[in-house]
């Protein structure tokens, strides 16, 4: 059985919850006060899906500004990138938009970009309006790759889709990710 290695990176402003998502996905763990990432963390996750084995090589990047310039290292050659924003923090959304633009510009053409609005369990603290988030979707033209709604379904492995929703959305944990595309 073939084992497919898939390079995946998470991008987004500092503190939006990238590491939490990864932690949930890789180890099914959640830590209340997870420290901010230094540089980048690397983790692997083995997923068996439809009799195929995937090894996700996940780069969890640090969101601070000073690490910004390092990002190419991580998305270069990546099959997928998850850009994360925090629904309770307005400023994280434009930042996410910037990332998407950068990825569209710099990353490989086949890269699958997913944008995740994290911390849905904190609905009452929401700052990013549900209306606003829809609009950018139109900007993501099919020419970049298909943006689609991830929710509960896995993608066909063959098309190099990024995320398995189940782990990513942190079911059972405090933080819920509301994937919109």
């Amino acid at each position: 059985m073939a084992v497919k290695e898939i390079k995946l990176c998470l991008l987004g402003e500092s503190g939006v919850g990238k590491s939490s998502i990864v932690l949930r996905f890789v180890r099914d763990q959640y830590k209340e006060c997870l420290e901010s990432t230094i540089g980048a963390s690397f983790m692997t996750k083995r997923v068996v899906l439809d009799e195929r084995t995937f090894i996700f090589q996940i780069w969890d990047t640090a969101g601070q500004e000073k690490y910004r310039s390092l990002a190419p290292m991580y998305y270069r050659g990546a099959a997928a990138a998850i850009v994360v924003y925090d629904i309770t923090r307005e400023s994280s959304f434009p930042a996410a938009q910037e990332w998407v633009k950068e990825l569209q510009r710099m990353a490989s053409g086949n890269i699958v970009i997913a944008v995740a609005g994290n911390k849905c369990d904190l609905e009452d603290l929401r700052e990013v309006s549900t209306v606003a988030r829809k609009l950018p979707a139109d900007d993501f033209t099919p020419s970049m790759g298909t943006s689609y709604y991830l929710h509960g379904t896995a993608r066909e492995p063959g098309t190099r889709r990024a995320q398995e929703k189940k782990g990513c959305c942190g079911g059972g944990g405090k933080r819920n990710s509301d994937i919109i595309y």
Partner: protein
Amino acid sequence: MAAKEAEQTEIEVENEELQEDIAPGDCGSAMLIASDSFDSLVGNDYETELAIKKKKSHINEIVRQGSFEQEDSCGEQADVNHIGPYGDATTPSASEESSGEQSDPSMTKELSAVLDEISKSPDHDDDDVKTPEWKAQSKHVFILSDSGKPVYSRYGNEDKLVTVFGVMQALVSFVQDSAHDSIRSLVAGEHRIIFLHHENIILVCVTRGSESDRLIRIQLNYLYNQILSVLTLSTLKKIFKQRRNYDLRRQLSGSEKFLDSLLTMMEREPGLLLSAVRCLPLECQTRDMIAQSIVQHAKVKDLVFALIIANSQLVTLVRMKKYFLHPMDLHIIINLINAAESFKAAESWTPICLPKFDSSGFLQAHISYLDEACQTCLLLLTVDRDSFFTLSGCKTKITERLIKYNGLKAISDSLRKDSYNISKCGISDLRHFLYKNKSTAQYTSPELEAPYLSPGEQERLFGLYHYLHNRIHSSARPLKILYHVGQYEALLGWVTQGFELYAVFSPLVTKSLAINAVNKLMAWIRKEASRLFILESVTF
């Protein structure tokens, strides 16, 4: 604090009775750069800056070396490393707001303006930080830019300390401009205010404690180097050259915890004061085996340093032949590991600048723990930013080998609380000691035990060591031996060409008993030297 404890007079003694011999721990090959940490502070700060500027960039050397070996050198790579990986992205964007820029040339005017402001505005934003608790803190540390922009405050929120920062900046520039000198310290009531001014950055400590000025300046210097470790000196200069008012916090966000943890570390870790590194005691063969594991499996191009750290102690260091590690750099590395839990979760790949090694650029560090319990940390420092997977592979192989030969077990055994007890020395009345071998820049010290188990008592104990150290190294009257009887302990400090020894005894000890004990201790250290120190310098 120790000085206040002193009840009896100190006795300064000629060392007729202490048996001086070759310093235990001497070895032919050194791996660390030996120095006294305060040497660099002795001269004018400006001169120090000059010295740093003139230093060659090791990283460039290494990269160039690597690219010579490899015909297909990537120009981009070399450039990036030269400036720093951040490149232009760190240039502050035009939309950057400037606030509070002082363009008024007259300093007196500034000073009085600032002071006026302070005196007339009680209901400033400072509400939060002018609370009694804030004021009651014994030791404040502030870092600000030349232009007075807050960078860091140990306690409180920097935003709410704007006027305080303003005052500090005014004081510094006032002295600079009017007296063409740099302010070093002030005394105000029971507080001492110590300044350290490096180019672009002002570091200030306001303390009610009894740490000496010199010690505080060493600590401030460490903090400065911690900042450099995150940014590099070149970047720092470039930033401020472009924008004098730049808010450095943007670059340092997320790094405050390193400054916090460094401050804590400095209060507990004697190595910073001694400018020496503490090694984990290990049998010589074991350490050798560990080092060889690295040599064999990490002989990778562009790998400059490989080290294993356990519980803030150095297990082994393997280095590129030409290059040595400075104890300060190692302390910064240790601080990095201690402050960041995230390394324990997964392998990490992060840039780090070692200011003493090369302040102009970054090394890239692969950081991972070798064991489940996350006690033993492996660091691989390279100039090649793309070598993650290679190094990851090295790590795996090294781990396998260590497990195979029980290296990890030996390390964890040595980490047990009772493994290095003072009782092992078999000297009664001796409670604790610090021994530093000057030529190797390594020191050894037993685990703390009763009566120094509580944090308060440990702090007090280190205060005593600081006191001893300061008294002996006092530039006005340097001493060879100092014997001091305090309320709770008797202290003995002994400094020679080859080593420094600081010992703590029961207060009931007599001078002759103490000297006798010290002689015995030296003999013991000599006997155990191969275990307590790294005597072999291993290179790739």
